[in-house]
């Protein structure tokens, strides 16, 4: 893995308190060499976009298990673009029904990860996008 030197923001938008997935991915990305910033719970999309741009991160990962992914992702994309951060690759993990995946990709999401995927595959997918 070549995540050494990469800065990745892992964020929990909305009110969802399920943070195991976010923390597990954060630890795995750190083990793979990345510098990981974790926001903690209950952050608004504009806060997340601000941190992403201020910290000059290479990628943002949103973790959402509350069913509000369509709205929260759209808002985060809007806020990132407003801060000229539209080019930062955005990933989403959590409880994401198959039916919603196309809409998220259309909104600009570069990778969607669910609980049944292997950690190594998630890390490799992020690595592949960042290596481009």
């Amino acid at each position, binding site marked *: *893995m070549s995540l050494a030197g990469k800065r990745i923001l892992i964020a929990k938008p909305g*009110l969802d308190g399920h943070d*195991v997935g976010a923390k597990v991915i954060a630890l*795995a990305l*750190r083990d793979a060499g990345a510098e990981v910033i974790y926001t903690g*719970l209950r952050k608004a999309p504009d806060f997340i976009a601000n941190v992403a741009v201020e910290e000059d991160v290479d990628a943002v990962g949103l973790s959402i298990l509350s069913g509000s992914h369509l709205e929260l992702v759209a808002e985060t994309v809007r806020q990132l673009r407003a801060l000229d951060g539209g080019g930062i690759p955005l990933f989403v993990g959590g409880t994401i029904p198959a039916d919603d995946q196309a809409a998220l990709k259309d909104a600009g999401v570069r990778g969607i990860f669910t*609980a*049944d995927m292997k950690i190594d595959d998630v890390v490799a997918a992020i690595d592949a996008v960042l290596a481009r």
Partner: protein
Amino acid sequence: MSSSAYGGDGPADVSAAPAMPSSMTPSGIEIPQVATADMVRNDPGRPGEYPFTRGIFPNGYRGRLWTIRQYSGFGSAEETNQRYRFLLARGQTGLSVALDLPTQCGYDPIDAMARSEVGKVGVSVATLADMETLFDGIDLAGISTSFTINGTAPMIYAMYLAAADKKGVPRESLTGTIQNDILKEYVARGTWIFPVRPSLRLIADCILFSNDATPRFNPISIAGAHVRDAGSTAVEEMGFTLANGLAYVDEMLRRGGDINRFAKRLSFFFYVHMDFFEEICKFRAGRRVWAKLLHDRYGVTDPKALMFRFGVVCGGSSLTAAQPYNNIVRVGIENMAAVFGGAQSIFTCAYDEAYQIPTEFSAETALRTQQVVAYESGISKTVDPLGGSYYVEYLTDQMDHEITKVIGEIETYGGAEKAIEDGYLQSRIARRALERKLQTDAGERVVVGQNYFRREDEGASDFGEVFKLDAKAAGQTIDRFNEVRAARDGAAVAESLHRLSEAALRDDDNLIPYMIDCAHAYVSIGEMVGALKNHWGEFQEPVGL
């Protein structure tokens, strides 16, 4: 893909049978090939007798079956009321209210923070009007109701009492539970609002008020379930929970509570996952450890105050999105473990619950699972039928030892309160969750249909019917909220909120009566929380990994 960062590539052939399972339980306790009499250290005694290893009642489920209580709630109060009537008509014996995240975190449905979350993972209850609709046509004196509510537990409890007042139901006849366990919210579930100190005060307020006003109601359900589902082992689940329980006992004693009285109304809540015997013995051991702690450390003498009463949820992260119908079998096995463990109430997850709000069909199947276990299997006809089994008593002793060790570790750290404020428990669980995930990825832990026995032709998960939330429900909830606010008596709102706010500044004042007054005046949950936030601020989450 390229070589793994962790060195494991998982099972090469996913259709292959796994190797013989490990000779350790998931918590790391050695499993003997054959258990023998000499491995049993403790005499399990008799059910209904201290330290209650074999159960808290001498007649077990013969006296009273466990409460069949399915967690349910979504969309508007009207829709959820319909689902409750559906479940009650099919033989459910208690209600369990799932509340949406704005309600749990203390935001009104019109708050910017609530946007896109109203009615999503539970029902919205913002004012007494929603509570009245939720229980429309349901006899509050005839049914026990459990609320999975923590940060805003005092406000929801106050609204429930106000709803009973308006129906003319005497408060002392109410039975049910508010979860009201904030410590584990900081560790795993995340719906905290205030810092730890004022949060503990609110919990003590609830317990002290409830002991007098609603003596048959459980004002707290100290929960390990969420810590477990977040990745802890069964031993840690019980150990962390009993450590939190001790923190509440200490807080109640600081407030001048009588332990022989308030300990009778402490209840507990856990997950049941798939390792059958470890789950059974977790409960047998937990019952014994708790009774001994209260007896030896606090000198509790009333046998009822030593009884460890608990509810369970079967399913959670032991369920899979792949091959979802396998989940019915998993939940059936977990349901039996809960019965062998002596649970007082049981919630069985629906087979699609790993993924969506259950449909009526999946919810009914989950309910039927409990009815089959209760009325067909015969396992509830004698008390603790596994008592005296060499293996079960050996494993109970081992769990007892390991659980006691975990409690000791937390106390050595400085107690549950400090371990949580520092983020020590949070980090420990995150590491454990990664470990468990990597074991599954590497095929060391078998999950049928997910890492073994997969069907490669399986596309998107097939749940049959898909539950769709009524897209208009959130809008209706917001409209209704605005109507309620417009119609209420503004002077009564201002007066009751002012009194609540003033009382919050007096540490020895109990806030629950002020909240009941607020509820009667249709003060909203966001307004009550806002008044207290002005004094106390919010919890600052430790975000170190």
